[in-house]
């Protein structure tokens, strides 16, 4: 693991960024709270139970859902399993390398997982088939296809979109045995959590940082909110700090910006 930044931003470019930000503008002409164009395409992998390709600017992420059955965790015998995993593919960036998941990929998956889990997006009690014995296990695997900043949000949107469109086989219990039925039912989705990640560059928080902005940022903060504007997950990243006032500003921005993104996700996954 190397702590060296992979991508180096030119000093003059960073100076330009800071100068523009002081006037409320960004190098790619966005306003500080504006995300890059977001596209969502679902049902792209036929063999998956649900899938979605999300592009956020040039960042491209593919999420696939696979549903199987298995044993529940001993401490939650009446709940199904939901696991999010992410891999930054070697083809995604000149700096990515094959091998076991990096610290960054583990953090990415865990933060996205937290948003999905804590928002109670999927009603895990409805994934129980026989209490203590058999439950649905929902795996969401994410392949990062192209890296251009803000993997957190792109991954989150892909996972949420894939889950919203996922269908699983119906199982019935007959004579204490689990029997597979022919028809399919949707994965029981209740909510649409939306993650909004901001980078702090100097004194300004910018939404959806590009990789160039990430290379220049001091720190990163991700805040995930649910449909009712509740905060359900957050993560501060990078070896720098944030003031308490900025944290609260980030929460408000996430609630505000998240609304429009949620509407777009819901529209794309109808």
């Amino acid at each position, binding site marked *: 693991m*190397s702590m060296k930044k992979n991508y180096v931003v030119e000093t003059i470019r960073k100076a330009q960024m800071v100068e523009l930000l002081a006037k409320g503008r960004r190098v790619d002409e966005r306003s500080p709270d504006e995300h890059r164009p977001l596209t969502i395409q679902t049902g792209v992998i036929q063999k998956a139970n649900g899938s979605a390709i999300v592009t956020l600017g040039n960042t491209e992420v593919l999420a696939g859902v696979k549903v199987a059955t298995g044993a529940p965790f001993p401490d939650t015998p009446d709940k199904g399993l939901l696991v999010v995993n992410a891999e930054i593919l070697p083809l995604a960036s000149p700096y990515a390398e094959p091998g076991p998941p990096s610290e960054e990929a583990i953090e990415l998956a865990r933060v996205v997982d937290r948003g999905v889990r804590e928002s109670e997006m999927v009603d895990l009690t409805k994934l129980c088939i026989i209490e203590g014995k058999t439950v649905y296990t929902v795996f969401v695997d994410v392949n990062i296809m192209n890296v251009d900043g803000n993997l957190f949000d792109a991954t989150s949107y892909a996972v949420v979109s894939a889950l919203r469109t996922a269908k699983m086989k119906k199982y019935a219990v007959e004579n204490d045995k689990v029997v597979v039925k022919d028809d399919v039912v949707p994965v029981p989705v209740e909510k649409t959590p939306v993650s909004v990640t901001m980078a702090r560059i100097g004194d300004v928080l910018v939404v959806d940082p590009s990789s160039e902005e990430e290379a220049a940022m001091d720190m990163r903060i991700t805040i995930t909110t649910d449909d009712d504007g*509740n905060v359900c997950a957050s993560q*501060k990243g990078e070896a720098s700090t944030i003031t308490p006032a900025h944290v609260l500003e980030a929460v408000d921005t996430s609630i505000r910006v998240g609304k429009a993104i949620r509407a777009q996700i819901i529209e794309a996954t109808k």
Partner: protein
Amino acid sequence: MGLLKNADGSAYINWGKNKIMAAVYGPKEVHPKHQVLPDRALLRTRYHMAPFSVDERKNPAPSRREIEISKVIREALVPAVTVEDYPRTAIEVWVEVLQSDGGSRVAGITAASLALADAGINMRDLVVGCSCGIIDSQVVADLDDTEDKEGSGDMPVAIMPNLNQVTLLQVDGMYSRADFQKAFELAIAKGKEVYGMQREALMKRFFEGQEAGMVEEESA
């Protein structure tokens, strides 16, 4: 503090049922060499839970949770360390959870920052943490392990108290905008209380029985 004789600095913290030992080695040579940072120190952190630290034996291999926590602990400590004072070196911070309770990462950070000060690594401020959560729709500070499981949220926060900067923030659970602010501000306030104890521990280690104040300059 200073319990581990081999380490350049160490601190042991008892916080609720948490029993955590933090040790600092360094600055020292960087191995492997390609990880050397020419302009600053490389801070390495490992948060690790002993197999016997939890109810069910934990597999000693680092879990994904531990890898993530090691990363956020590093990112919580680096802002306090003047890493530019120690170019081309490594500073290692080992956080070993011997018995775990709720809030072990913030307790670990609190101990690690004392171990860094004990080792005499230049620091801009100490780092101190506290976590908050929600139980029965009430915001509460410093959840223990059973509350952590019953409650509907956990918000570990670490701060540099003198600089009023947040160095770690993780949230899970369900917080209204108002509850978020309440929990966040409570975590900071509690962290400042723990800072008082951190300060006391350092004072006890280094100044016990000493008096400060005005003195006449010693003659040559």
